[in-house]
């Protein structure tokens, strides 16, 4: 080999190696794009910015729900250095066994990685947080994350506001990955219905981290960051003072109150008794407290006003009066005699015979059995089913037998049977008014939730229409955008038939069964009800609206197993109407005292309304 060839050989070796390296570079820098991804994985850390959840106010701007900082103790396992387990346990107030168990649990968790932050202990107390902050330097790898939880300024309206809790796997799936493990979500009440508005939108911040996971700055000066958008504030239609008074009045009683502003369908008060302190379902004890409430035999978690159907009893006579007139089987001069009842339906002693207005005032059972009979056995219709369908249609138009569409979770439809139900029970065409006569006085196959009662009252107060009751009045100071909450739902009753019934309802207060509910200077129209129920003592029911002209409030009160409508329901409604209309509720001290102190919890063990 000559010298030239040797030189060439070396040159060829050099160039071959260089070529191999260039090809390799070409491959990893241009062909294989996965390295770019790895590089971003290395340095890019996605941090979630949690928006502040929207605040909740009452209709007058009184703050009801706000946010409170909570502290989660998190750890990046890889960064733990020389941890003094003993002093660590002492600060956290746990023993060594718990410490070891917690670790074992964390390591079993899905997606565990020693390089990723993980929550070691949720919601440590403020003293623990303070103690921990002092010693933070000793516990390398641990840090405290601040999040917010809810706080309730008043102990009222727990069912309305609901509560928030950590998302479930299903929530995460349904949200297409928007929610992450440990995020909070509204679980019931307004928190749930208005999760989208209250929750806001999470933001993302991309930070660069070095190989030791220390933050080194923003990624591309924050070009790809998204700001968190705070949740919208919400104004409930609830009047906090009215709500608080109602809850106080229902203390030690089982029952519901629903108050609606007839013109707007806004719910002024929505009370379920027994209730609970909303502040119980907050913080790390939420789970335990929830289980306690769930096991309580008084069922404080049960949202009675929107889901429990009660037989309406005599208040249904108001609807009957309107139906009869609409079907032309009744007018204000129709009189029926009453001799302490009608067939097997009894009645109390009163003047007889009576015309419509008087019959409403004294709540004559016989009269309305006659009305019911003339409705169902109406010769205008060939078959009983056709006549009953008219009855059904009218009742339905008042919002009975279906969920109204209030913006709360868990609303029940109540009970209103279709003709087919009776066909099945008795055979086609083989039934008539007398078969179902108890429906004429609001018993039998009828179930109405307190919300539906209040809604029907509002429809009467409006002389023929209602607006779907709703609990959220404003979102970010704009009217609730749901068009349902701005639409008049007309009943099937002509407006001209209302005045005489309303006169009768006023008589109920002025000289009839609910004289006790009278408030001097305010024209109240109402109707008592005493609903028999198969599980115990009668339910005390009352619904009313006031003032008679230009009504401001329609209210329905149910006190379970409390006896006559006039004994408990009517006074409670009266006190609440007075409060709402005049701002005072202590003008009748004796009545107020009696209602506040009344304890009916011993009356009947079967305290719950039957749902089915």
């Amino acid at each position, binding site marked *: 080999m000559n010298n030239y060839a040797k030189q060439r050989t070396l040159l060829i070796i050099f160039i071959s190696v260089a070529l191999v390296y260039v090809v390799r570079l070409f491959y990893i820098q241009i062909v*294989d794009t996965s390295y770019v991804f790895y590089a971003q994985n290395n340095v890019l850390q996605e941090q979630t910015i949690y928006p502040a959840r929207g605040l909740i106010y009452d209709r007058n701007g009184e703050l009801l729900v706000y946010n409170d900082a909570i502290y989660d103790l998190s750890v990046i396992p890889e960064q733990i250095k020389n941890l003094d387990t003993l002093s660590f346990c002492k600060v956290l107030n746990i023993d060594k066994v718990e410490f070891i168990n917690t670790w074992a649990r964390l390591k079993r968790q899905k997606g565990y990685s020693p390089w990723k932050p993980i929550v070691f202990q949720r919601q440590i107390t403020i003293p623990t947080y303070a103690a921990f902050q002092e010693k933070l330097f000793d516990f390398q790898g641990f840090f405290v994350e601040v999040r917010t939880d809810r706080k309730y300024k008043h102990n009222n309206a727990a069912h309305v506001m609901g509560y928030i809790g950590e998302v479930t796997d299903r929530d995460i799936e349904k949200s297409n990955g928007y929610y992450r493990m440990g995020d909070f979500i509204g679980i019931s009440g307004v928190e749930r219905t208005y999760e989208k508005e209250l929750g806001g939108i999470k933001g993302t911040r991309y930070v660069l981290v070095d190989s030791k996971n220390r933050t080194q700055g923003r990624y591309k000066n924050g070009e790809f960051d998204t700001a968190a958008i705070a949740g919208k504030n919400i104004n409930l239609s609830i009047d906090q003072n009215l709500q608080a008074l109602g809850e106080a009045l229902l203390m030690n009683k089982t029952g519901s109150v629903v108050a609606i502003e007839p013109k707007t369908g806004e719910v002024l008060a929505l009370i379920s008794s027994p209730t609970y302190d909303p502040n119980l379902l907050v913080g790390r004890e939420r789970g335990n407290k929830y289980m306690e409430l769930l096991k309580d035999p008084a069922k404080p978690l049960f949202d009675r006003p929107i889901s429990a159907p009660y037989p309406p009893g005599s208040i249904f006579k108001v609807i009957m009066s309107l139906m009869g007139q609409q079907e032309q089987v009744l007018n204000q001069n129709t009189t029926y005699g009453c001799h302490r009842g009608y067939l097997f339906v009894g009645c109390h002693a009163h003047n007889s015979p009576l015309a419509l207005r008087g019959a409403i005032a004294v709540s004559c059972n016989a009269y309305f059995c006659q009305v019911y009979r003339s409705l169902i056995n109406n010769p205008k219709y060939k078959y009983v089913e056709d006549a009953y369908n008219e009855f059904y249609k009218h009742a339905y138009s008042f919002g009975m037998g279906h969920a109204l569409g209030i913006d709360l979770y868990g609303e029940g439809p109540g009970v209103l049977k279709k003709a087919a139900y009776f066909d099945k029970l008795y055979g086609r065409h083989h039934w008539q008014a007398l078969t179902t006569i108890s429906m004429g006085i609001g018993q039998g196959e009828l179930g109405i939730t307190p919300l539906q009662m209040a809604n029907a009252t509002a429809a009467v107060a409006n002389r023929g229409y209602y607006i779907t009751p709703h609990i959220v009045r404003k979102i970010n100071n704009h009217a609730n955008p749901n068009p349902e909450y701005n639409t008049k739902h007309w009943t099937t009753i002509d407006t001209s038939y209302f005045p005489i019934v309303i006169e009768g309802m006023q008589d109920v207060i002025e000289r009839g069964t609910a004289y006790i509910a009278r408030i001097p200077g305010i024209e109240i129209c109402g109707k008592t009800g005493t609903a028999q129920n198969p599980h115990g003592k009668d339910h005390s029911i009352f619904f009313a609206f006031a003032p008679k002209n230009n009504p401001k409030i329609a209210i329905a009160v149910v006190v379970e197993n409390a006896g006559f409508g006039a004994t408990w329901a009517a006074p409670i409604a009266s006190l609440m109407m007075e409060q709402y209309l005049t701002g005072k509720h202590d003008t009748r001290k004796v009545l107020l005292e009696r209602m506040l102190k009344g304890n009916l919890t011993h009356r009947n063990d079967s305290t719950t309304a039957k749902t089915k």
Partner: protein
Amino acid sequence: MTVQQPKPSRIDWITLLLYYIFVIGGLLCIYASVYKETNPNIWDGSMNYGKQLVWIGISSFIGLMILLIDEKFFYAFAYPIYGITILLLILVLVAGTTVKGSSSWIELGGFRIQPAEFAKFGTALALARFLCGYNVNFEKDRKIQLLSAGIIILPMLIILLQNETGSTLVFTSFILVLFREGLPGWILFVGFMLAILAVMALLMPPLYIIIGLAVLAVIFLILVRRTTQLIWLTLGVVILSGAMVSSIDYVFENVMQAHQRTRINVLLGKEVDIKGAGYNVQQSKIAIGSGGVWGKGFLQGTQNKFRFVPEQSTDFIFCTIGEEYGFAGSLLFIILYMILLYRLLMMAERQRQKFNRIYGYSVVCILFFHFVINVGMTLGLMPVIGIPLPFISYGGSALLSFTVLLFIFIRLDANRVNELRGAYD
């Protein structure tokens, strides 16, 4: 005797220019790799780039000195210089400072120097001096061959004792020099085949390889005209190969240290350990691979800046080039480096004096070897052997020794015209 000053026109300016391109480029890479927003001052003497700047100054000064020295100095003092470097190497064994597992450093004032770096040009000078004699016939004389090997192997052994595997391996590049001086080509070929055998020995059990070789030998013997001599030769090759494969396997399992074993295993793909021994290479590949075509730009390389790449200013400095300047920058670097090697090769070949030529070839081969190992390592093609990328990597000893290595050759080359003229005088 008058000192022959080299005329500026005779200095190879192209090489000098390339040298400064690499040194300045290297400084920028070092700056980028340890850059922090909080401390952007490139003149900061406490940071790597500040120190490197000082070393560039020192190197330039010493380089200038070398260019001013009579070229006969290197010829005359080749052996003493070699002797001094060997002494220094031994001194390190006695009084060295251990840095990162290798005890190859000597503390000198505020700076640490690594005599192994200087042993490279010491050995190159000694080898050149030894082989340039008129009555020295490397091709024929067995004694000369053994002595040449001795000159090379002596510093290797001492450096190996310092636990500096990387620097030890650099001396194998002298094989290419010897090839130019008459080492038969088949030795290179056999060496290459042995390397392949060695890699196979690490990948699979020795028995399989021996069986495979035997099968190949039988096929070979069937195909060629069989002579007794050829049969014995083939048999000998198979037995020797088998012995070598077995001993490599033995050395690998029993002599090598665990970290070396792991490095080799990771390279060969036998172990996948992204967070362990493979971490460095994986991060290095990520840094280079994420550079794309044009790179992320000066100071924009996140992988280096945030310390994902280990030793990012010394052994893995090529990652900064790959990440911040992308494929384009890496290609440019390789082309420039190849131009430098080609230039030096041309220069070496044009020397009239054997001494100059042998020295020149030594420079080329050492620079080439560093390039192969260092860049290959960052690309995951070579095992992780900690040797610097010439002129680019941070490190005073390395820069100074490469500068001396290169400038001596520039000085020698600058004199070739005088020699020519001298012949006519």
